[in-house]
């Protein structure tokens, strides 16, 4: 591997600069407690898998798949980072390397001051992991018993455990569920139970793998507001993978997009919207029905009676367009719509697939 310091982020203009070691600036962190210190460092990490495929009756062919293809990033304490990408892009592989159950083929990882693969058990005490599709709770046991086992497993002091459990029970509304066996819980209830289980030992980093998958709107909102509270009050660093863009919009100050094993964006949401070829939409209400408005730098999407929709590049300013419309047409009302983040990302993947 390359022994030199990591290169700059290979992504857009809003990418976070790689801080010097032990940087203490906390500019990008959301808020709260233990912000600032570098908590996760990933340097030029590659992970390849050998996949055997059938080639003929007995012959097997070995092909090498690069699940993660040289990624670099750092996460500072207190950040909430969204880690997104299409299925098979390398998200889970990255998370598995960050938790130490997968050894990188090359490159360097550092989480909470430890080498994950080499010090997996020690690291396990400093991180929390939640899988939306799997549970860490014991199926046949009341929720309370699962938590009691967690306390022993992570050797949490009794009063600290009480405090953490009480907070989770209150914020996640678990009081009525504690004595119920996990198999009787609904998906949303179980998910809340799982998130609480991951936080009882005060982890410095919380990895969430699709924490809102399959949940109804109310449960999703509750999970999100809880995560926000944990981040602001405890300063817990959160790394979140999800396909739900509302999770990203409501929780994350920073988004990393991975595709084909490479980071294609690392920065804030605004940067994600500006990058790529996304468009903003101008919704124009006129006094009466008119033929489609034709303007330089905008295209008409739709006309419906006196209302017209015009698209223009997200990077361009809306001011000259608005001024021109107001000058030339009988304008009643006007609003601007930001591009939906889903669309931005869908376009991003599509662009890369073509390019």
């Amino acid at each position, binding site marked *: 591997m390359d022994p030199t310091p990591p290169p700059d982020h290979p992504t857009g203009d809003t990418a976070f600069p790689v801080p010097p070691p032990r940087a203490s600036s906390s500019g990008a962190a959301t808020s709260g407690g233990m912000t600032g210190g570098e908590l996760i460092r990933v340097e030029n990490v590659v992970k390849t898998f050998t996949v055997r495929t059938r080639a003929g009756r007995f012959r097997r062919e070995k092909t090498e798949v690069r699940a993660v293809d040289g990624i670099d990033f750092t996460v500072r304490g207190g950040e909430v980072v969204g880690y997104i990408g299409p299925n098979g892009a390398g*998200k889970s592989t990255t998370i598995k390397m960050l938790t130490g*159950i997968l050894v990188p083929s090359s490159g360097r990882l550092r989480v909470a001051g430890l080498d994950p693969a080499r010090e997996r058990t020690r690291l396990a005490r400093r991180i929390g*992991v939640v*899988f939306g599709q799997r*549970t860490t709770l014991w199926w046949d*046991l009341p929720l309370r*018993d699962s938590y009691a*086992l967690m306390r022993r497993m*992570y050797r949490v002091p009794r009063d600290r455990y009480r405090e953490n459990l009480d907070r989770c029970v209150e914020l996640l509304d678990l009081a009525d569920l504690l004595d119920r066996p996990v198999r009787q819980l609904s998906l949303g209830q179980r998910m809340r139970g799982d998130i609480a289980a991951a936080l009882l030992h005060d982890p410095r980093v919380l990895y969430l793998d699709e924490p809102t998958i399959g949940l109804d709107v109310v449960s999703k909102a509750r999970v999100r507001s809880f995560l926000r509270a944990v981040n602001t009050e405890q300063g817990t660093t959160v790394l979140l993978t999800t396909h739900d863009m509302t999770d990203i919009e409501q929780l994350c100050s920073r988004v990393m997009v991975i595709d084909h094993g490479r980071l294609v964006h690392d920065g804030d949401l605004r940067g994600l919207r500006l990058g790529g070829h996304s468009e903003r939409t101008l919704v124009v209400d006129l006094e009466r029905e008119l033929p489609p408005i034709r303007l330089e730098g905008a295209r008409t999407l739709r006309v419906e009676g006196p209302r017209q929709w015009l698209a223009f590049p997200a990077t361009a300013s809306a001011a000259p367009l608005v001024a021109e419309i107001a000058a030339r047409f009988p304008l009643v009302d006007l609003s601007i719509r930001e591009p939906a983040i889903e669309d931005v990302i869908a376009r991003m993947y599509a662009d890369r697939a073509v390019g």
Partner: protein
Amino acid sequence: MGLYAAIAVRSFRRYATYRAATVAGAFTNTVFGLIVAHTYLALWDERPALGGYDVAQAVTFVWLGQALLAAMSLLGGGFEEELGERIRTGDVAVDLYRPVNLQLWWLCADLGRAGYHLLGRGLVPVLVGGCLFDLRVPTGPARWFAFLVSVLLGIVVSFALRYLVALSGFWLLDGSGVRTVGVLTAVFFSGMLLPLTLFPGWLGELARALPWSALLQVPADVYLGRHAGGELVGAMAFQAGWAVVLLATGQALTAMATRRVVVQGG
């Protein structure tokens, strides 16, 4: 109470919640005990002192087998199905994120289960058998103690064997076939089908040297007082030796499997 003791207690309680299953199981063990005991009576009537047992010892062997059947998980029903399923679905990844030793974790869980099965599934058949047949009972607390230690060692060996079977799922993706082979092997080579002392020549030698004999044959012989003094120590050393070898193998294979598991499933 430490973590591992807590796991064993939780596991004991977990099996204790399925009362109907316990009653049904104990009933089945009793019925089978009756059938097999009568078969043995006919057999030993024809061939007295078969395998070095008198009639009373032979019938006692039958009821011991029924009492230990569930605890030793000879027909399955232990942790191995759950672990096998977790490996198949990839849920085992959750276990690997924990700061615990995977094998030790499941060992404690299985000890809790075995403890419950020993009481819930073992006592009733032995009491019924004791009322209907003339069974041998160990004389003196020392022999009882030796028997309990031997049963505990047998459970550990049984666990270690099933752990290896479950781990095979990491390589085979679906371990149910291996589990079936594991059950058949255990039933035959533990002495559950017939006491291993009945087998002549090399087959008998082999059967008595394999780890499965630690599950039933050895504890039964300890109970029946067929080992004395140095021989008793030797019998238990045989069990303990297999336990150590198998657990060490399990530990090594766990390390190999964890490096592998991660490939499966997003």
